């Protein structure tokens, strides 16, 4: 089976549910390095995404576009805006198609990553959400089925968190506290990893 709107809708529901406990964890992570709003912001983004009705929609690109619009309507924060940017990019590349082979996920995520880098100005290695996105897109190269995608994505996120934990932040608010940020997870990477895990862990 390929990736369809059903998978996307189920993924949103799972991520949305995960925010219940994740919200405060991300706020705390962001309050150490930034302004403490990552969790509340993502909760609001996922609230609005989860409200979007996908009934009768089978165009993957259309459904991703709806989610991108919801993210952009819910917030103007850095991470939320980058999320909207990534989703919009993937939406444009999948417009008109109802099924996407799992093997296409890697190049789609690469294009999202490039769009996010262009919008936000972060480079690879700056310890931002971009590095998590990059880790997942690299890990998925060659993954041909859903089970493989799931396992590799989760592992790639874990690995990225560990790899960057002792690096300094080089972008966003946390940039100023490069030293302080050593030993801490970047809130955006952490959010990406936790949500990826929640989407991949259970059957979508």
């Amino acid at each position, binding site marked *: 089976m390929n990736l369809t709107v059903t998978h996307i809708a189920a993924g949103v529901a799972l991520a949305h549910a995960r925010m219940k406990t994740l919200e*405060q964890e991300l*706020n*705390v992570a962001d*309050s150490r*390095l*930034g*302004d*403490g*709003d990552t*969790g*509340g*912001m993502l909760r*609001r983004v996922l609230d609005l995404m989860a409200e979007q009705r996908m009934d009768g929609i089978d165009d993957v690109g259309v459904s991703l576009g709806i989610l991108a619009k919801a993210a*952009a*309507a*819910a*917030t*103007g*924060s*850095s991470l*939320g*805006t*980058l999320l*909207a*940017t990534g989703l919009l990019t993937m939406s444009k590349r999948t417009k008109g198609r109802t099924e996407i082979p799992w093997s296409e996920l890697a190049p789609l995520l690469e294009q999202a990553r490039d769009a996010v880098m262009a*919008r*936000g100005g972060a480079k690879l290695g700056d310890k931002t959400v971009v590095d998590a996105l990059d880790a997942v897109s690299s890990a998925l190269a060659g993954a041909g089925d859903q089970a493989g995608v799931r396992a590799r994505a989760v592992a790639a996120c874990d690995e990225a968190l560990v790899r960057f934990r002792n690096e300094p932040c080089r972008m*966003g*608010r946390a*940039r*100023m*506290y490069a030293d*302080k940020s050593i030993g801490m997870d970047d809130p955006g990477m952490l959010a990406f990893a936790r949500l990826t895990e929640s989407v991949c862990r259970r059957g979508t």
Partner: protein
Amino acid sequence: MKKLINDPAHYVDEMLDGLCAAHPSLTRDGPAGRVIRRTEGARAGKVGIVTGGGSGHLPLFTGYVGPGLVDACSIGNVFEGPTVDSCMAAIKAADGGRGVLRLYGNYGGDRMNFDMAGEFLEDDGLELSTVLGTDDIASAAPEERSKRRGVAGIVYAYKIAGARADEGASLAEVTAAAAKAVERTRTIGCALAPCQIPGAAEPSFRIAPSEMEMGIGIHGEPGIWRDTLKPADAVADEMVDRLLAERPEGSGHRVSVLVNSLGATPLEELFILYRRIAERLDKAGLAVVQPLVGPFVTSMEMAGVSLSLCFLDDKMERLLAAPASCPFWRVG
């Protein structure tokens, strides 16, 4: 951290409703009501000035909409940038047919959304420019001035660019005036107690009852040092010294001063600080012009202050003194 609020989810919208109800010169508009514009609308033939940013900083941003200042403002959730749609709507609301200056603080979310809004609107043929507030000297080294955060000093850019626009200047001239104001303004803040984002379980930072933090940002971004609370004069001295060490090249001996409360710090303490700051500037051979003392750019209930110096030239001084009026600041 106690707050007199209702559901945190309605914090911003209820606040904006109250703001516009109390101040009929302001009108809510735009997608989800997240634009505040002048009720009388954009002035045809005048360059528009638009600003925006996250909530939680009143009077900033929405409170500075008014004649001689900014024309419209897109406003986000607490400490979050405004959405791209509200940025587009705010830009359109500020458009009087001679182009629009986007004038806001240098934060990632704000920048991305104003940029995207511009990309959409420039397709429509709207002439746009951008100036970013970058006055917080604690947020990057002098060599990286363009990376600095925008904080309280942005009110000087509003005032000076706003006056220039009112004179009928072109978009390029208004943009240059705003850029000059930013280039000539330096700010540093310090905090004694944190604020808390409505709905968050924890304050945005923790600080011991005996301590203060120098160089903190208006969202609680970590500062330069944290140590025992110092007497007001010592704090004033350090802030003045740090700002004077970055006196802009070519600046003269006239300076405007903004002693700003971050929220909970009362006027009494601002005046105790101002007394010393004015003495120190005088000793440094600087003449103070149009001092501002009060809450101009806050972080909700954060306790602390910031000091801004705007190094004036004749033209800036004239623009600073020109008439302007918004619910929280009136000149002339």
